């Protein structure tokens, strides 16, 4: 039984050598469809990335606890300047913050003078930090920088700029209503085209299948080599498409990376890459399964 199983799996591989031109055409069709879908997915990934990153800059507002030692805070501000992607900072000691508040409130405020607060200033030291981290591994950078700031001694709160929050919100909406359906649709398209291509390729084997059925072969015996053949075609086709995509990505990665676009073309995420491999392989197997009819 096991020997028969391995013989049939071997037959599935050998089946790729029978009618090599037909196999090459089928493989080409799988590669072409996978490549086109991959291109669309790359465009979506790039758009996703650009929308989730404010072109060039990210700002943090850091608040220290009231009454912290200002000398220590000054040292921390110096250290922050050495963080990767640091662009500029605007820092406020509690005194500077009070003065700024006075200036901002101006004539509308009562009382007009906050001098009485200077002895017991309730305002904390704050810093508005602006970074230009670049687009590579943005998420990792964002996580690490946030963590660094949160871990500074005396820090009470860290926020990213409200502008980024709003952008994030907008992107989540777009992601829910546009991107996810688009990815689903493209994956479905990939599956249907690859599955049907493989199924049609097996129609050429219908005569052999009919003979096998006549001599008493069970369905699994007939189908196993076809499933292997379909899986190999799907996997090989999608892998080849990914290799071509990667090669093209390396060539065009920085084509749009100049001011004011500053857009780096992104390759597929690991999840999408896995999807690109799994769907054609699965549909190749399915194509092999439905390609067999009872005679």
């Amino acid at each position, binding site marked *: 039984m096991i020997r028969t199983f391995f013989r049939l799996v071997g037959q599935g591989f050998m089946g790729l050598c029978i009618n090599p031109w037909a196999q090459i055409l089928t493989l080409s069709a799988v590669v072409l469809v996978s490549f086109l879908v991959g291109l669309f997915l790359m465009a979506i990934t790039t758009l996703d990335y650009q929308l989730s990153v404010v072109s060039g800059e990210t700002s943090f507002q850091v608040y220290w606890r009231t009454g912290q030692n200002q000398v220590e805070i000054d040292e921390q501000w110096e250290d922050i300047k050495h963080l990767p992607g640091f662009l500029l900072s605007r820092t406020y000691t509690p005194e500077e913050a009070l003065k700024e508040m006075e200036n901002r409130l101006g004539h509308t405020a009562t009382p007009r003078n906050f001098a009485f607060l200077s002895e017991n200033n309730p305002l904390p030291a704050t810093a508005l930090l602006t970074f230009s981290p670049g687009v590579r591994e943005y998420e990792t950078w964002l996580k690490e920088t946030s963590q660094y700031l949160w871990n500074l001694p005396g820090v009470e709160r860290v926020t990213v700029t409200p502008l980024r929050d709003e952008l994030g919100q907008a992107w989540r909406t777009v992601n829910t209503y546009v991107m996810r359906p688009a990815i689903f649709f493209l994956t479905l398209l990939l599956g249907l085209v690859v599955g049907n291509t493989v199924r049609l390729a097996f129609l050429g084997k219908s005569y052999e299948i009919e003979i096998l059925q006549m001599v*008493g072969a069970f369905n699994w015996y007939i189908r196993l080599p076809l499933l292997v053949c379909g899986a190999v075609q799907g996997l090989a086709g999608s892998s080849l498409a990914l290799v071509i995509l990667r090669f093209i990505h390396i060539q065009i990665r920085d084509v749009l990376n100049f001011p004011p676009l500053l857009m780096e073309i992104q390759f597929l995420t690991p999840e999408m890459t896995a999807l690109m491999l799994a769907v054609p392989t699965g549909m190749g197997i399915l194509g092999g399964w439905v390609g067999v009819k009872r005679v």
Partner: protein
Amino acid sequence: MIEVRHLSHSFGPHWALKDCSFQLQKGEFLFLSGPSGAGKTTLLRLLFAGIPVQRGEVRVAGFALNQIKDSAVPLLRRQVSVVFQDFKILPDRSVYDNVILPLQVRGLGRVHSDRRVRAVVRALGLDSRIHLLCGELSGGEQQRVAVARAFVVNPKVLLADEPTGNLDADLSFRLMDLFKQFQAYGTTMIVATHSQELVKRHPEAKIIRLEDGKITGANWPGAMLDNGLAGAPLNGFNTGDGYASGTRSLSLSRQANIRATMRQMGPDGAVERKTTGDDKK
């Protein structure tokens, strides 16, 4: 071994078979004769579950084809070999690969399979062609490959649909002689043909004549037909007019080959095959 009762089959409004009944025991030989479109092929297709039974009852090798499940059809076809008029062999495979196919399907060991294939191929005079692609063979040789593939599994039943349709007279007679040789070892055979010459050469065989889907005549020793047609005149069939029957036209070496083949096939062979309850009917 084969029991057909009140079998009718239609394709749309056209009745291809109408109320056919007959029985065959183990090792019996039946000619199914009649003009083209008489229903011979339909009857054969029904007997190997190529098409489902619509009306009537059919039992073949212990399988009730009225109720047979899809999953049991391969089991039936392991008992019933079929030789088609168009051979149904794989032209891009060698003679060896074509003949060994049913043994591979059954999961027989390589050594045992190899021995059986070579024995049958030798018996059919194809040993010098064993590694040639079937597409390179003549029509007669291809037909013999189809026969070899049918016999290599020692079937309980052999169905042949116009097996001599593509052969000249001499090859046809030789092929039928081969059938008779194998039949002598216990295989029940039904051969569909419209060749009266062929039927005349085998006066000992049972004959059913089909016309427009009906049994219109039969030569049926033992009166096993339900419809009272046993011994009905067959318009010149089976007249016992002196045609050589059986082995005389086979060379002595070929006859010896076949006997040796059946011996080599071992315990699964037709000679030693266990008798089923069905066979005892």
